[in-house]
């Protein structure tokens, strides 16, 4: 009897240790490839096998990143880019939400607006960019408007979808409780459509970053995109890499913020959590 218990205890503690080391193993497996690539990249670069002009070594990228930060150049470019992104995102997001709600709530406005919006949505934004530059010049306006346009469609689409998914049964309740028009929007439609709206915000954010890059690559004298473009013409590959990493980080951080919002605002949802 007692030996059995000891054996059982032993197996339990072994199991525990196993799960702990398993976690470490999983993290290690995830990091293995990036680290290996960076190491290989550094070794090949140092050995002179990789052409230094096209593939700046990781060490060089890091040093030029630190230099750019210290000189304040990166900060200035980043600030301009973030301002553009934020302005464009707010503008497009606001109208996407607003028109999504209106079209979602009102059949007539759907019939008037939706076909046109759906048609415009299919036009690739890259095609519109030259037109925007011709209309609004190389200044801030064309960039902000391009970003706004990119943000508008996903937010419009998801808001519209979310409102159309509102349960008719809950709408009946709101009617019986005499919710007025505004209350129906703010206390029924928006909360019920919130999962879709947040998804729209996430998609809108990634569209905003993409449009920002496009706008800044095509014509700008400031911003991270310009920094990349400028570095390219001088074959400063290390700075190009820094710019790319900055965009990757910005995208990841903004996505994490929305995820955090989702977790807080949608805690009422009874969905499967693996």
């Amino acid at each position, binding site marked *: 009897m007692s030996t059995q218990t000891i054996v059982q205890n032993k197996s339990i503690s072994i199991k525990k240790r196993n799960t702990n080391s398993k976690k470490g193993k999983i993290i290690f497996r995830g990091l293995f490839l990036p680290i290996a690539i960076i190491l290989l990249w550094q070794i090949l670069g140092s050995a002179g096998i990789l052409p230094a002009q096209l593939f700046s070594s990781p060490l060089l990228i890091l040093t030029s990143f630190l230099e750019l930060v210290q000189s304040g150049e990166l900060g200035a470019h980043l600030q301009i880019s973030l301002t553009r992104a934020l302005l464009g995102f707010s503008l497009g997001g606001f109208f996407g939400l607003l028109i999504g709600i209106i079209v979602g709530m009102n059949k007539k406005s759907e019939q008037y607006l939706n076909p046109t919006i759906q048609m415009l949505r299919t036009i690739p934004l890259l095609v519109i960019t030259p037109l925007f530059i011709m209309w609004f010049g190389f200044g801030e306006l064309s960039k902000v408007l391009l970003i706004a346009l990119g943000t508008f469609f996903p937010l419009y689409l998801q808001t519209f979808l979310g409102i159309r998914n509102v349960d008719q049964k809950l709408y*009946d309740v709101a*009617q*019986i409780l005499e919710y007025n028009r505004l209350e129906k929007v703010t206390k029924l439609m928006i909360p019920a459509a919130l999962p879709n709206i947040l998804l729209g915000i996430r998609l809108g954010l990634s569209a905003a970053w993409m449009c920002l890059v496009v706008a800044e690559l095509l014509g700008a004298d400031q911003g991270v995109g310009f920094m990349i473009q400028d570095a390219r013409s001088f074959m400063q590959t290390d700075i190009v890499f820094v710019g790319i990493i900055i965009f990757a980080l910005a995208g990841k951080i903004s996505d994490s913020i929305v995820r955090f919002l989702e977790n807080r605002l949608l805690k*009422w949802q009874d969905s499967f959590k693996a």
Partner: protein
Amino acid sequence: MMVATLQINKVSKTFNNESEKVHVLDNINLSVQQDEFLSVIGPSGCGKSTLLKLIAGLDLNYEGNIVLGTKEVIGPSKDRGFIFQEHRLFPWLTVEKNIAGNLSLKDPDTRKRVDNLITLVNLKGFEKAYPRQLSGGMSQRVAIARALLRNPEVLLLDEPFGALDAFTRSHLQEALLEIWKKNQTTMVLVTHDIDEAIFLSSRVVVMDSKPGRIKANVVIDLPYPRRRTSKSFQEFRTAILNHLDHKVEDVEDWSI
């Protein structure tokens, strides 16, 4: 003395099903007194739930008219509270906010009345719970509290306990009777449960299907609280079953 609160005058309703017309309700005339607990019973498809929807004002596409007090029904209103078969709570709101709905809990009067109702429906301690954390019976009690907060003149109940287990159901039935006596709210209950109808109601309306018509009016003049096993209860049961076209022999415990 008797005040007719709810008047249903010559109400007919047809659904257009592709080619054929279905008469769901055919010339329904019914008046409900202020102090009544009325049950509407009938086979499925007799239009009893449709009738409730018309009284609620959720569907205005019918012939005839419905009058509450002196006002004709032209749309949904807080005067006519509605308890659906499902609880229909807003999943993103806590229990207390669901009850309050579009009223602010910051208002001390609302706060107090919501708290009182939470006590009344026995949900103390669950004020901050979300609907997904509640059982079916608890959710339905929240829905009842939500309707009662609006002080409705009539409470319309559409098979409210149909989806609940027997124990919860009988508990809620007793709670409903208490509310009826206390608040003097006129009750109109649609059900397919004969025992439930007799246990609760002062009058039972039996409906026929296709087309939906009123077949019989049975006044249940038994004193409350009623015992389901009593002989007089069984007699009413038989009477209603007879109206529903059941054979008397079907009732096993019918004996003298």
